[in-house]
């Protein structure tokens, strides 16, 4: 039986990372992972909530966990999954802190619901890599990404802090590397795979973000990558939408497409540019994808 998960899309999936949410849902469908969106889910508060107050943060997350608890009474769920690392960290941190009975009763009082929070919580990436496995992914790749040279960029918090996230290696994770390899891409060694992009400081301290994200693009270019592959909406936005800002600030001239891994999974599975929403990327991947298609044509 195919596993069924409560799906938490996160706010960015409705706007700035529409292509991540859409391609994630398509990828899960092809892999036989059933997603049921948590009905009327609310924003987890992201960094602003935990930076302002831990009880507020846990209560915003707690409402979503309580709704998922109700879902689990109706049908068997393998857990809660989300594509967004920031949502994931808030979900998992809250679940962890709710093990303190005093804190739990505070949270339940603020939420106005009981919160059991005993469902496993994972990223979509973790479920795909650990539960589906590389063979399934390789079989999915009817149009392997042969000739595409990529660097995998996990961002900070997909795997950190390890005590909470309990997924892969906190300094040198391999899940995304292995997934992209299974899809046929050439994955280059990348020392900055978990280095910070500057996150939400982009709005308030652009200098911090252009420096940190600039370093990541510099390293990707130095590695000889055609593209960066991201797993986080915030990282992708900083590297892609802000690439012109970064170039201006650093006197660089990068023109590196920044894909979501789920978009590349769709492409490898034979979905076209339209259904993988490649047109949503700010740095156009069109020339790169055309050259790949041409190379694949030559090889055939």
């Amino acid at each position, binding site marked *: 039986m195919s596993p069924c998960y409560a799906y938490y899309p996160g706010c960015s999936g409705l706007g700035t990372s529409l292509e991540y949410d859409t391609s994630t849902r398509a990828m899960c469908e092809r892999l036989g992972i059933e997603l049921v969106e948590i009905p009327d889910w*609310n924003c987890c508060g992201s960094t602003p909530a935990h930076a*302002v107050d831990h009880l507020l943060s846990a209560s915003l997350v707690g*409402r979503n966990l309580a709704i998922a608890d109700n879902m689990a009474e109706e049908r068997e769920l393998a857990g809660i999954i989300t594509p967004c690392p920031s949502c994931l960290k808030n979900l998992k941190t809250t679940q962890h802190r709710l093990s303190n009975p005093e804190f739990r009763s505070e949270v339940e009082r603020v939420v106005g619901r009981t919160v059991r929070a005993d469902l496993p919580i994972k990223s979509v990436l973790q479920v795909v890599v650990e539960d589906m496995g590389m063979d399934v992914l390789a079989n999915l790749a009817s149009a392997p990404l042969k000739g595409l040279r990529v660097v995998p960029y996990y961002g*900070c918090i997909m795997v950190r*802090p*390890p005590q909470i996230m309990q997924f892969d290696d906190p300094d040198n994770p391999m899940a995304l590397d292995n997934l992209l390899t299974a899809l046929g891409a050439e994955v280059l060694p990348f020392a900055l795979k978990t280095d910070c992009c500057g996150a939400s400081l982009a709005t308030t301290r652009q200098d911090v973000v252009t420096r940190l994200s600039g370093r990541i693009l510099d390293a990707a270019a130095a590695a000889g990558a055609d593209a960066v592959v991201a797993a986080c909406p915030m990282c992708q936005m900083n590297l892609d939408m802000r690439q012109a800002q970064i170039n201006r600030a650093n006197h660089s001239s990068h023109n590196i497409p920044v894909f979501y891994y789920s978009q590349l999974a769709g492409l490898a599975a034979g979905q076209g540019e339209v259904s993988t929403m490649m047109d949503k990327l700010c740095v156009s991947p069109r020339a790169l994808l055309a050259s790949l298609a041409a190379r694949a044509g030559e090889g055939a």
Partner: protein
Amino acid sequence: MSSSTNLNVYDADFVDEVQRESEQNLALCYQCGNCTAGCPVSFAYDYPVNQIMRLVQAGRKKEALSSHAIWLCASCETCTTRCPNDIDVARVMDVLRHMARRENLVCEPAVSAFWDAFLGSVEKHGRIFELGLMASYVSKTGRVLTDVDLAPMALRKGKLGFKAHTLKGISEIRGIFDRYREHN
């Protein structure tokens, strides 16, 4: 003598408060510097993160809470991950921000204003309405040029919705904010 050179300003209550709220044993920090070595934002800090930890150990409340560093921390969790004594340093940074807001010692008002605008959007709609969030941030800070260069691209790509996605259960969200405020 200014407070920054006065060694006698040890504030025991402050140390207790940070320990209690962060649930961390601050005495375990022996200043190995691993947190600072891994911190990506050190270049922009006034005090590197190990010195923030030392200021807290030394009970130097005012310096710690009025530092720029606590606002520029990106919550990347590298410090927490690499601390050899398992101190959740990022959580300590969180708690220092909470306290700085309570004590009106915020040194990077734009960062704090952005968080308020973000949470305002959550309270109003239940989910983030990005366009409304930016408008609110700009009106709070007067920074009218923030990311205006990105707007045409974001609009062309359909990445900025003009409509908020307000929850059916929005009254429940407002209740959460109300009860959280009663608590504080």
